[in-house]
């Protein structure tokens, strides 16, 4: 009988996702050093947001090369996240698909990425966004990215990471975004 209560917390702990684990670790760190909690960096927040975007988005089956293909987050261009992104993605899965991270200097082949974080020079961004479609949730920096046809653009609002959403771009990409996610978006482009 003593075995059962010992196992229950472990069983509960398992579904913790990477992002949650991150937040948990972050909170734990904050609690541990009551004097000056080390605030997560902007890129770390963004990395966690990337993972969370996947949970509020529905991809058509045609967006994947195969039924068993992983959901791949592609970081195109310069990588601001480093190994942190890999850490939080570790062990995560969605609808039976593993979540993988891939880095590429340019736009990779069609079907390779389901979420693409583009960190390219402004001139190339618009072209790359168009090249990725359809079936890819494109995430970039700033309002300009959304104007250029990107679906989600990170902005800073009072030092908090927020994001903008271009719904028509998402529609034309064949993606469905959860209304709940839209409810916390800073602005929604048409």
């Amino acid at each position: 009988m003593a075995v059962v209560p010992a196992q229950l917390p472990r069983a509960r702990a398992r579904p913790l996702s990477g992002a949650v684990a991150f937040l948990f670790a972050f909170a734990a760190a904050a609690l541990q050093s009551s004097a000056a909690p080390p605030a997560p960096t902007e890129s770390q927040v963004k990395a966690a947001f990337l993972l969370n975007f996947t949970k509020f988005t529905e991809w058509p089956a045609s967006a994947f090369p195969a039924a068993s293909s992983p959901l791949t987050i592609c970081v195109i261009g310069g990588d601001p996240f480093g190994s942190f992104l890999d850490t939080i993605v570790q062990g995560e899965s969605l609808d039976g698909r593993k979540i993988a991270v891939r880095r590429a200097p340019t736009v990779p082949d069609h079907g390779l990425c389901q979420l693409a974080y583009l960190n390219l020079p402004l001139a190339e961004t618009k072209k790359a966004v168009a090249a990725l479609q359809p079936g890819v949730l494109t995430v970039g920096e700033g309002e300009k990215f959304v104007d250029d046809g990107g679906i989600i653009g990170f902005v800073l609002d009072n030092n908090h990471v927020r994001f903008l959403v271009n719904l028509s771009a998402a529609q034309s990409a064949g993606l469905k975004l959860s209304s709940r996610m839209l409810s916390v978006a800073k602005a929604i482009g048409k």
Partner: protein
Amino acid sequence: MTPFRDLPIRQKLLLIAMLTTAVALVAAGSTIVFADSLLFQAFLRRDLSALARIVAENSTAALSFQDPQAAGETLASLHSRVHVVGACLYDAAGVQFAVYRRSPGFNCPAPSQGERIRESRDALYVSEPVVLRGSRIGTLVFVYDLGEIDERIALYGSLVLAVLLGSGIIAFALSSRLRSLVSAPIAALVEAAMSVSETGDYGIRARKVGNDELGLLADRFNDMLTRIEQRENELKRAIADRETALRDVERERQRVRFMAESMPQKIFTALPDGSVDYFNAQWMEYTGLTFEQIRDWGWTRLIHPDDLEENVRLWRHSVETGEPFHLEHRFRRADGVYRWHLSRARAMRDSGGRILMWIGSNTEIQEQKEKEADLRRANEDLQQFAYSASHDLQEPIRNVAVYSEIVADRYSAQLDEDGRQFLEFIREGGRRLAVLVNDLLAYTRASMAELTETTIDSAAALRNAVSNLSEAIRESSAVVTWDALPEVHMGEAHLQQVFQNLVANAVKYRSAAPPAIHISALRAGDFWRFSVQDNGIGIDPKYRERIFGVFKRLHHDRKYSGTGIGLAICQRVIERYGGRIWVESEPGLGATFYFTIPVRPQQSGPAKLASAAG
């Protein structure tokens, strides 16, 4: 319950109605409230669970994208549920992420790990995990104030109370009208019973209301009153009758006493039980004693010791049976001398036959008694003389008859006509004298005959008598008939003599028609009653007594020859045996002679005289 027991029925009925109404309402009300609070709590739990799930769902994005403001807005949607005191959102690490407070005093409770809904005394704590795509990313906690349930209970309670009050008033109003259905007939009965017991008037009747048990009760009550009324009237009548009777008795008593005081005899009255309650003044004077000394049964001291036993016995017998008292006995006079008295007493009765009193008299018969004895002695002497005389006369008479016959035979030729006629007178006189003396002898013998215990067949006696008279019967063409005749205690010669004299009379005193004579007998009480009926000339009623005297002949002509002694002999014989003889007749219609003979033989000797003389 004792105070309740003494309440009037109308109040009892009201109390019962009100109590049952109240109990039913309270039971129904509390059941409803209890069931409602159970149902409401279950509903509330389901409702709050659903609410928690919705709010948790709506919080996923805010939690995922670090937006406490959005989370706060989501939580604020609980504002519309007025009983939600506050809500808190925790992230996966258990750090408070967002808060909603209805009032500033709200403190976030720690998220519960186990049960989703925890209940405290006055609130529900709802913990809902916030799950995104299978992963728990936080916890929603909110507090629900259970004051609502108390409010509901208070509301229901006041409703029940209001209904109770309302229905109580309605029940009161209704039962005040309805209870008269029960209490009015009872009140009517009670009123009737009260007025009967107060006035004693049994003519009063209870008013009957309806045909239920109370109606039945009223009917029975009235029946009972009717019967009591009848009984009371009967009783009153009986008492009145009794009073009248007592007054009558008292009046009679006074009258009797008044009369008694003025009479020469000694008079007394006695109560129905035989104790003497009055003696007249003649009594006191005669006995020289006071009333107190002889009242009740005190008079017995005055009775001659030899007479006392029979006197008391007969008096008791009379008191028990009501038969008249009659006794000759001796009483002691004031000077101590015993004198013969005839004591008589008769019961005076009311119309119903009950004995009211006895009235008696005591008459001194001493002189009578002495005269009677003298007379009896004289009579006996006379009889003795008559017997001796007739007996002694027979011899010279026979001589006269015999020698007159001899003279007639031998010397009639020597006599002239006158001589022969004179001789015939002598012969005729001699014959009649012989018959006369014989009859006289028979008459005196009849008085001296000894009584017999043996029985004889009266029919045989009659046959002998008829046979002795055969010549006279044949000459007169008479017909003698008789019915079955009994055996009697008599000397046969005596009965034969009676029959012979009566039948001879019937033949002798015949009318123009041939005599028809019939003899019969029937039982009348302690006697056989014989009758000898003829169709002769009959007897004038004024001579009914005379004909039984000695030598009393009604007819002196030669047509009806006889000595006139026959019926006297019959009477002597019959009375000797304790019977009686009499005749019933109308002149010209024949006559019927009756005589009675006791069925059982009399005591030998002249019983009455013997006891009286004893």
